[in-house]
């Protein structure tokens, strides 16, 4: 038997959350949930690990800070010292207040762009890439739960029965 996938559609996020809780308490593994917006509290229920995006963001920010400080040190102190307002410019620390806004902005720029790009790459949602959601309506007002019977020891029929009893409005196997 070829691997079939069960897609259960819900029209309310609370119903889906309750259904997911009921199923996982029986030991069912839910592969994924498609939703137009983040469902509050779904992550621990379906076993999604906490995101590491924040750590990436911190590293990108640190990179930006280092680059900015090093860049300004090279441009303004080493390579071409400029006399601005008569400020001494022999050492970095003498001009550091003037560099702080730029360091801050560059840190934010690097962190924000790095995080956005990482997010898109990780989700594989770049321009021209085909969308992976099974039903277009999951970007509108419906919620879909994806379950692989091969992950579970419960029979497909029983799964379908459970889904229907917990409020799914349409179940498709394909």
């Amino acid at each position, binding site marked *: 038997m070829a691997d079939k996938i069960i897609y259960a559609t819900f029209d309310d996020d609370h119903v889906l959350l309750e259904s997911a809780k009921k199923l996982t308490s029986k030991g069912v593994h839910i592969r994924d949930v498609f939703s137009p917006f983040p469902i*509050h*509290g779904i992550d621990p229920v379906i076993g999604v690990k906490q995101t590491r995006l*924040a750590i990436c963001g*911190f590293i990108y920010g640190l990179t930006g800070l280092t680059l900015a400080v090093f860049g300004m040190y090279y441009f303004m102190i080493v390579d071409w010292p400029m006399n601005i*307002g*008569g*400020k001494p410019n022999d050492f970095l620390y003498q001009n550091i*207040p*003037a560099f*702080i*806004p730029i360091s801050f902005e560059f840190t934010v720029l690097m962190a924000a762009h790095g995080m956005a790009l990482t997010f898109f790459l990780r989700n594989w949602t770049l321009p021209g890439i085909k969308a992976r959601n099974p039903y277009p309506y999951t970007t509108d007002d419906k919620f879909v739960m994806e379950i692989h019977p091969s992950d579970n020891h419960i029979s497909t029929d029983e799964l379908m029965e459970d889904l229907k009893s917990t409020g799914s409005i349409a179940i498709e196997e394909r």
Partner: protein
Amino acid sequence: MEFVFSKKAKITFSILMIIGLIAMIYGYSTDHSHHHNRFWSNLLINGFFFFAISLGGLFFLTLQYATEASYMVVLKRIIEAITQYIYVGAAVLIIVFLAGSMHIHHLYHWMDNAVYHEYVMESTIGSDHPEYVDEMVEGAVVNEHYDAIIDGKSAYLNQPFFWIRTLIYLGVWCFFAYFFRKRSLMEDELGGTKIHFKNMGYAAIFLVFFAVTSSTSAWDWIMSIDTHWFSTLFGWYVFSGMWVSFMIFLVLFTIWLRGRGYLPFVNDSHIHDIGKWMFAISFLWTYLWFSQFMLIWYSDIPEEVTYYIQRIQEFKLLFFGIFFTNFAFPMVILMSRDAKRAIGYLIFVGVLIFIGHWLDVYMMITPGSVGHADFGFMEVGMFLGFLGLFLFTVFNSLSKAPILVKNHPFLEESKHLHI
């Protein structure tokens, strides 16, 4: 549940107040600075710092009303208790200003009549009340105390107008603190949504008034110590300081009460939320502190930069030290989500930057009034004394009403806060 102001706490705070009283007497008698300025500036620092915490609380409370926020409802009584110190704080400030008006101290240089008049009658020089005149008349000579810059500000910085403004600020703020407390207790009795919806409008009126007066009061009471100097964002800088001091106190106080078992309805999400405020407003403070410093440092105009030259020459360690502690500690330690839910981290950072923000007020006032860093028993003792007075008042008003509000429309929502 009722909060009980235990005997042990009463004794502790009384001891703190006695230490403060001893420090005041000892400080006044050993203070040989000009006009006992060091003593009076300590009174102003502590008077203002703790007054500002309760004023920040009043601002935060009205912000919750005006935005109809639900998440802080379970902490409302605590915030209200903090605002009830405002009457005591206002009284201390009035004592300081009255003493200034009566020339008992010399924190406010501009209160001296001598700086406003170009000429003085020669025969009265050296007497207690020299006769100053504005025009060259028979028997008058040039007044060497005349200060053209301060004279140019006399339309704003004169004693009658100063007192009118001060009494309006204090009167209206105290009135709103009393008013919102009364309505909150009324809501417990009556229920319904009428009080809640009306509070929104009253809070908006307060916020508009506060937006203007928080700035002007900072100019009048603190910026005018360095009379020649001015900074247009000084008011926001002082305001951010009072806001963050209040947030820190709220975090520490809530954690303490929860540890005692008084707040079973406060969960980790509430702690996380106020921890976020502490983190965010620390950044607001840093942003304003640095903006003010950097622009003046960069342009290097003599009339502006004197303010910082004195602070950097006489208070180098404190001046840069508080910037780093008040900025670096919250940033590094409180950045992650888990740290804002960890009690130990919050207490550690909270205590450090609480002291840091007291030192920030110290740095606003002392350089202009005393001129150099004298730090001893008087400073520490008076801080402890005022801390005792503040805590005594706050605990006392917290024990006067149930610690959880009844009948607030958002109470259930607030209890189930989950982030």
